[in-house]
């Protein structure tokens, strides 16, 4: 039961930290913030499976007690989510580098000051 409370506190801290980083001006920190939020969600998913059961394959076989089995589905979900998160994080980091190449800065304040509508007016897209 204590594990639940500890994890609840950890999840709260992770989301708080992720939100804090997303609100930074530095673009790399924003990407970290998004990554931390995604990881916090993964931890949350694992937590949703509960902590009462034993190892799914082992429990109930041979001489082992026929204990209730841990839900394996959440772990399958988290594996999928981790793979997706890996891809999106890689893309976000490459995009950050491209933003730096194009604008010479990764400060969001300075990026915002290059008025978006004015920039769009210069050359609406592709020429």
């Amino acid at each position: 039961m204590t594990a639940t409370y500890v994890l609840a506190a950890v999840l709260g801290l992770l989301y708080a930290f992720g939100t804090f980083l997303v609100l930074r001006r530095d673009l790399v920190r924003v990407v970290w913030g998004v990554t931390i939020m995604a990881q916090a969600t993964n931890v949350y998913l694992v937590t949703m499976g509960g902590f009462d059961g034993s190892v799914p394959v082992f429990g109930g076989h041979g001489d082992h007690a026929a204990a209730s089995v841990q839900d394996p589905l959440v772990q399958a979900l988290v594996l999928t989510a981790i793979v997706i998160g890996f891809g999106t994080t890689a893309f976000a980091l490459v995009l950050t580098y491209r933003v730096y190449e194009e604008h010479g800065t990764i400060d969001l304040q300075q990026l915002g000051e290059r008025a978006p509508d004015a920039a769009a007016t210069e050359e609406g897209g592709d020429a």
Partner: protein
Amino acid sequence: MAAPHHVVVAPLLAALATAIATLLLRPLPRAQRAVSLLGGVAYAAGVAFLYRAVVADPDGYLVYALSNWEAPFGIVAVADPLSAFMLVIAAVVGLAALVFSVGYLDPADQTLAYHPLFHLMLVGVTGAFLTGDLFNLFVWFEVMLMASYVLVVFYSGPEHTRAALHYAVLNLIGSAVMLLAVGGIYAVTGTLNMADITARLASGAADPVPVLGLSAVLFAVFALKAGIVPFQFWVPAAYRAAPAPVTAVLAGVVKKVGIYAIVRLYFTVFAAATLPVSLPFIEGESFLAFFGPVMFAMAVASIVFGGIAAVNQPDLDGLLAYSSVGQVGFIVLPLAVAATAPDGGELMILGIAAALVYSLNHGIAKGLLFLGSGAARRATGTTEFAGLGGLSERDPVFAGAFFLGALALIGIPPLSGFFGKYLVFDVGVRAGSTAVLAVALIGAIFTIAYFSRAWNRAFWGEPVAYERKPLLVGVVAALGISLLVLGVGFDPVFRAAEAAAEAAVNRSGYVDAVLEVEL
């Protein structure tokens, strides 16, 4: 278990195979483009076959259990009239945009990644329309979004990277939130299969209170994908940055995935729960009683904000982008009325049907207009109103097609847009809601205002230098004609939308088809 209906995954496989083939054919650009076009045709054919199979099926439900793992343990793909209707929108707009992009983009630009990404985006859209599993829906959203991030940043100039950054970061946060809600719903209901969630909520096996909160979180994510106010801020920059054919698909199809998810999850799945809700202005026995007023407020805000902002744009792309925000409001407005109507009643079905007809019309008309904006850029070098003028004199066919698209969004008979608007007003009248009528009227006036301005500035006045682009204009004209055909032969369209709406509220049919149990 009945024999598996392989036709359910036909469009999915067509798009996936094309994506892989175009990736392998990069050394042969001409063959790559030909295969990509063929794949687009195969996708449309797959959708047509699936649609026919769904109509021919006595129950209207085709279930495909992946690897023959039975629901609710395996993942199922479910084709019913609702998903088939949405797939038709995707096929029409997707095929038109694909043909357009072959003539629009520089051949060297197309070689590297454009065609595989375009088809992968269609894979994601198709999967989202077909899946019967909540986590699988998240995965298809990610497939669709990953492809769209790269397509938004396609030109990777300064404004494109910035727009893609906004788009990607917002959607990454949205994805984390969606996963959170999906995990929570799994923890509460003990299942991810949508039909199983429906059955468990209906029988009271799952506690509805946490599901209401989690579904509200999920709603914010779908609203972000659909670009409904207050989650619309990524729309204009992303639509300006993406190449015109991609924007046509983003506005015409990808937005509709958010709408589809709202209809499918909130009207089919979550509405099964009975839960007395009592908050200020919100009272009722189901989740929909809670979401109805929320949708109404968001629809009103979208229509008003999108309309005001669109009137004041300096360029065609910006005008169309804000117009999409407003038009999505018109799709959500009848849904809001349907949500507060008696469950499964005539008004609820009519409201959903109105939203679907409007989605179809908006998908094709807005696709047409964004492609038209791209054609104008290729022909004159700009989409700024300052640099446009006299296009109706330079190219009457193009001007006529663009005019049809604008008239369809304004809602002039005999175009399909007239029926879309008419049904929204009809829903408002039947609900006896003057507020709905007033908002729809204000939105209609804004639509007329911004399209008159676009027409005056770009198509009348002093003619500018213009280079004819027959292929691009041909695609735009073909979409214009399809709007006319849909409007003149509207009866079958309406019956299809009505069948889709009935499928959306037919919970027992859905559960019975997927789980083979009586609800």
